[in-house]
């Protein structure tokens, strides 16, 4: 353990390209909030950043226990980054349990800031420490700073008339103050935010402000710290920025889609981690005309969304894996009815209840194949928190235009992670509006006056969207096989084959209508890293790193999993090796191999945590030296 002897001179200011800080404490310690504030202050300074909350499944596990530890990791950078970083450079540990559960992640030689007040016997015990790690050499390989945060916070709050128990709750702001000073983060945004957030409770404002200032001052004055650090602003494209996590971006994307389609949104969901926040966000946006419906279960949720779509709204349902499984049958109905529907899956660790608060990308098979009968549908996946906004618009666009259910895959890591976002202007968003059929549009030119609800658009193969209330177009549709054109029940063998092929062909035609594969190529590589979903982030970082070291590697990314972009096959064929890292056991790899008979190499990680850029860089280097 580096001795934290009191220094006598001003600390040096070191400049860093990037910095990864991990805040860890008890569930009740407010670590998510602390991390979020630190990120925000960094964003305002112009850093690029990416965050990853990591909290326990329990609501409030007993204080001080290992399973009650809640952590928040953020990478701030002077460059364009795409992950919350691999090994943290700095760990803030509010109690022994946090230290114990998080220390292994820290880079060797990293910095630890510890709330030394919490290292009493009871807490050490709860964390399962036999000896005090602050004293037994555990921290030898790190730079550890022991700060009596609890007592200092209580002290500074004394004069404010805040009770000690309440004051203690502000200790996270003390920690934030210390870290803010250490890394030269501006204090104004945090102070302002405290005012707005707790405005209605003046004592809380006072305590948090005092604690934050005290922490900052502690860094400044105690001369405990050897160095402070600066991460200069990133060279991001000019514009107005904000910071959002994937679930919020996704919810906003749905609102944007509703605006751009000129149709009201109907969101029917049943709460489930990590998707519930989308329901929460949209429930608070009723002025956008969105109807949110907390259904009695997932089946009711998807069915009511289908009912709303039948009625001419944009029917959307959000959930996670177990919910998608339950919705299978009704998604099949929407597919057979050929009505728009968007099913959003914020993936988490499976199977069964699995790891509800952890991330995974193992629902791709379910999205592609999880229905009885031949039931193909388009699948779209978002790849970064803010890109969830656009992915939502794209999913709605396809659903409306092709009258089909669409599955949009996100995951817990994207949903909870945030990053800066150059705010788009709504005038730059695509017009995704479609027409409802009217008696004139449908019957004219058909030469007969009977309603043909399955008369298809020759280009898209979409059937007309005839909403109840339209005079003259009354008709009945259902889940039994229908005659093409008339929509009447048909048991005719050839018609069934025709409809099966038409439904498949309709989905295939979407391929003409989607962007090409995202390809980052310098034209010289033999190795292609292929990604979908959130793995994009780690691979983007890793590819940069490897290239910086002279390695030749390209990166292709898929935003559409079904249908696949038309240019994918030639791209894949132009590389000697294709590696495909997935947070599953190789689901997309299997699909591509089967489709193209190309030996796509699958790389799996199924640990509830995303790939790190380091892991991928090692993988690439291994493949290059192979």
């Amino acid at each position, binding site marked *: 353990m580096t001795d934290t002897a009191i220094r006598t001179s001003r600390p040096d200011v070191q400049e860093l390209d990037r910095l990864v800080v991990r805040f860890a404490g008890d569930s009740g310690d407010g670590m998510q909030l602390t991390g979020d504030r630190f990120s925000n202050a960094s*964003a305002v300074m112009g850093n690029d950043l990416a965050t990853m909350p990591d909290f326990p499944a329990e609501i409030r596990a007993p204080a001080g226990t290992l399973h009650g530890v809640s952590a928040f990791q953020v990478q701030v950078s002077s460059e364009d980054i795409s992950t919350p970083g691999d090994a943290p450079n700095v760990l803030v540990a509010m109690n022994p349990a946090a230290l114990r559960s998080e220390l292994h992640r820290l880079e060797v030689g990293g910095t630890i800031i510890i709330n030394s007040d919490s290292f009493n016997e009871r807490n050490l015990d709860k964390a399962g420490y036999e000896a005090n790690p602050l004293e037994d050499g555990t921290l030898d390989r790190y730079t550890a700073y022991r700060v009596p945060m609890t007592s200092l916070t209580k002290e500074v709050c004394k004069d404010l008339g805040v009770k000690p128990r309440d004051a203690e709750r502000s200790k996270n702001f003390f920690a934030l103050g210390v870290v803010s000073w250490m890394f030269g983060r501006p204090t104004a945004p945090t102070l302002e*935010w405290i005012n707005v957030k707790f405005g209605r409770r003046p004592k809380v404002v006072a305590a948090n402000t005092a604690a934050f200032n005290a922490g900052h001052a502690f860094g400044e004055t105690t001369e405990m710290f050897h160095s402070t650090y600066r991460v200069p602003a990133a060279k991001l494209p000019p514009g107005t920025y904000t910071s959002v996590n994937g679930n919020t971006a996704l919810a906003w994307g749905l*609102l944007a889609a509703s605006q751009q389609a000129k149709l009201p949104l109907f969101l029917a969901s049943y709460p489930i981690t990590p998707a519930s926040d989308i329901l929460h966000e949209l429930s608070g946006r*009723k002025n956008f*005309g969105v109807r949110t419906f907390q259904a009695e279960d997932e089946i*009711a949720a998807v069915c*009511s969304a289908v009912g709303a779509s039948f009625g001419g709204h944009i029917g959307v349902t959000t959930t996670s894996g177990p919910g998608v499984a339950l919705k299978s049958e*009704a998604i099949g109905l929407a597919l057979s009815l050929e009505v728009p529907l968007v099913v959003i899956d914020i993936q988490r660790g499976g199977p069964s209840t699995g790891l509800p608060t952890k991330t995974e990308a193992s629902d791709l098979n379910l999205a592609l194949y999880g229905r009885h009968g031949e039931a193909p549908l388009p699948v779209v996946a978002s790849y970064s928190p803010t890109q969830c906004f656009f992915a939502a618009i794209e999913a709605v666009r396809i659903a409306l235009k092709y009258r089909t259910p669409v599955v949009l895959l996100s995951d817990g890591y994207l949903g909870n992670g945030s990053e800066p976002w150059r705010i788009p202007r709504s005038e730059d968003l695509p017009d995704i509006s479609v027409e409802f059929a009217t008696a004139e549009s449908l019957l004219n030119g058909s030469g007969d006056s009977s309603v043909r609800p399955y008369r298809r658009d020759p280009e898209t193969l979409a059937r007309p969207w005839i909403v109840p209330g339209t005079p003259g177009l*009354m008709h009945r549709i259902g889940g039994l096989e229908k005659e093409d054109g008339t929509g009447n029940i048909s048991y005719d063998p050839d018609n069934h084959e025709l409809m099966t092929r038409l439904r498949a062909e309709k989905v295939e035609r979407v391929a003409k209508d989607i962007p090409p594969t995202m390809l980052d190529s310098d034209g010289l590589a033999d190795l292609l890293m292929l990604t979908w979903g959130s793995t994009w982030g780690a691979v983007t970082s890793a590819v940069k790193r490897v290239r910086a070291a002279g390695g030749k590697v390209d990166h292709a990314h898929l935003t559409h999993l079904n249908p696949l972009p038309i240019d994918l096959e030639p791209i894949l064929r132009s590389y000697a090796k294709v590696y495909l890292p997935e947070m599953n056991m190789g689901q997309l790899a299997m699909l591509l191999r089967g489709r193209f008979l190309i030996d796509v190499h699958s790389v799996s990680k199924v640990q509830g945590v995303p790939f790190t850029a380091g892991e991928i860089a090692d993988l690439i280097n291994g493949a290059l030296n192979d």
Partner: protein
Amino acid sequence: MTDVSVPQTTRADWTSDQEPRWCPGCGDYSVLSAMQLLMPTLGVRRENTVFISGIGCAARFPYYMNTYGMHGIHGRAPALATGLAVSRPDLDVWVIGGDGDMLSIGGNHLLHALRRNVKLKILLFNNQIYGLTKGQLSPTSEVGKVTKSTPMGSVDEPFNPVSVALGAEATFVARTHDMDRGHMQEMFRRAWEHDGAAFVEIYQNCNVFNDGAFAAITKKDKRKSMLIDLEHGMPIRFGDNNERGVMMGADGQLRIVDVDDVGVGNIIVHDERADTPTLAFALSRLAAGPFLPTPVGVYRAVESPEYAEQVSRQIAFSQEISGPGDLDALLRSRTLWEVS
């Protein structure tokens, strides 16, 4: 609700071009005629009327109405319909299903639609059997029933659909039967008038797999003595000469009595609008199955805020306070910073 600008229609206008595919003699035909004949009298437009069903014999009903219609999946009609009714409060949404569809696989959706008081007109075709799958037990089949899946007789206690609905906070609950077109039409009309979830149980004969299940009470010559016609504000009496009546005991149990024995004054007066469904529930317990005197008619009809309307109201209110949604403003509603 009746819109005078609605053009006059006839049964033919409400009849689709699809030929019904029920077994000859099925009670479903009577319900269909009742509905097709009722519609022209309601002054509604066909394009504003939607029938949504699950799967089963009864659930084929929408195909035969010349309105909008959806033949959904088994058990989910109330959920499908809830989505439509909440997003399109301008429509009349009818929900059709059998006892299996709406009380077995779909029981939960029915319950939740009822408690939420979504404006749906829900018709449960209770034939006490699974028709479409050719004769298995349903959740309303009586104990001891021999069916394909219970060759030694059922050991399942059946639901009483009226009790279930009342237990689930239903605001409108009625019972009718397929042998009396006028009564059916009256119940359907009342359901249609109700501003909320209206639940109508129809005793429907499946002449192939459960013939005569209701004969003991619905046969013409039995009706007077076996059907207890509920009429709001009237003493609850029945019998060939109205000689019997229903009385509430101080022990909290209803009894069937001879009116002469207790005096008309002691016969309970039906109050479909009572705040609590206590009496309605008690009435639903009079007969454990369709072989004792059984109340038909409207058990309960109370006013209570309708769901879709409240959802719409929250939207309007929110637009009133916050102004209509402005996407650009929303995207800029959090901490912002400029990069130049």
